[in-house]
């Protein structure tokens, strides 16, 4: 198939962020939303859908992995694990 590829993001509930779930092939944006609905929300997974052309995704270079991500490994104080999150806050 030479139809364009689209990345699919589903938001399951109010208050949550859209989450990447996979991709679909579709000729245009309208049909991509329908394909995403038909492939990824068959079991009540979604309240909202985004589709994004896959070739519009800008990705980090795997060769930069150490430079980009390793320095955070030693900075445990950035994790919010020293605080109690009140119940009423819900999803964070």
């Amino acid at each position, binding site marked *: 198939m030479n139809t364009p590829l689209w990345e699919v993001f589903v938001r399951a509930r109010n208050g949550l962020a859209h989450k990447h779930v996979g991709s679909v092939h579709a000729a245009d944006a309208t*049909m991509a939303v*329908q394909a995403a609905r038909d*492939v990824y929300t068959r079991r009540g997974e979604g309240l909202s859908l985004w589709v994004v052309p896959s070739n519009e995704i800008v990705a980090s270079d795997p060769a930069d992995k150490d430079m980009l991500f390793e320095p955070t490994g030693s900075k445990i104080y950035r994790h919010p694990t020293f605080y109690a999150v009140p119940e009423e806050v819900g999803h964070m």
Partner: protein
Amino acid sequence: MATTSISVDETPRLRNLLMLADDALILGHRLSEWTGHAPTLEEELALTNIALDLIGQARALYQATGLDEDALAYLRDPNRFRNTLIAELPNGDFAFTIVRLFLVSTASDLYWRATVASDDPDLAAIAAKAEKETAYHVRHAADWLVRLGDGTDESHRRAQTALNALWPFTGELAGRPAWLRAVAPVLARATLTQPADGWMQSGGRDGRHTEHLGHLLAEMQILPRTYPGATW
């Protein structure tokens, strides 16, 4: 066939429920035949999702009769089925499948939207659920129809050929004046020529079917007729 076919005494309510249920079951079965054969994985799931919606509608409608839903689906002979002829025609190519789905689901959607306010509480409850399902069937089929009709020379030709072949079968669809008003603008967007109304096929509601229904039912009914009461 090892089991005896059933026939039921049709009150007006039962006959109406059977017409609606048989339409949904037979078109749902046709769409399920695309499983493993659709042009793309995405479209295969789209068509089988629609098939499952329709088979679910059929079950709810059979249950509303108060009779055994399995017996109604599996133990009636072709001449006892009340579906429209357009629902039982073989799938043909993808264009034929989409054109048929568009023509039929447009009529179904208009019917279910009006039936949400029905005096029959069973039917009103089914309509409330079915209306959302058929609204999507119409949208999906219409969006495809526009892309096929206004696509390549070949997709246009196939869509127009399907439309011409199916048009004489649209006389059995309910609420035809409103249906024509809903169908015409989509055909125009798809750059398809609306065929003139001529002689129309009929007989499905009275059990006079095309030769295709018997073959469809043979495949659909063989297991419960050969192994009565079989369970998974």
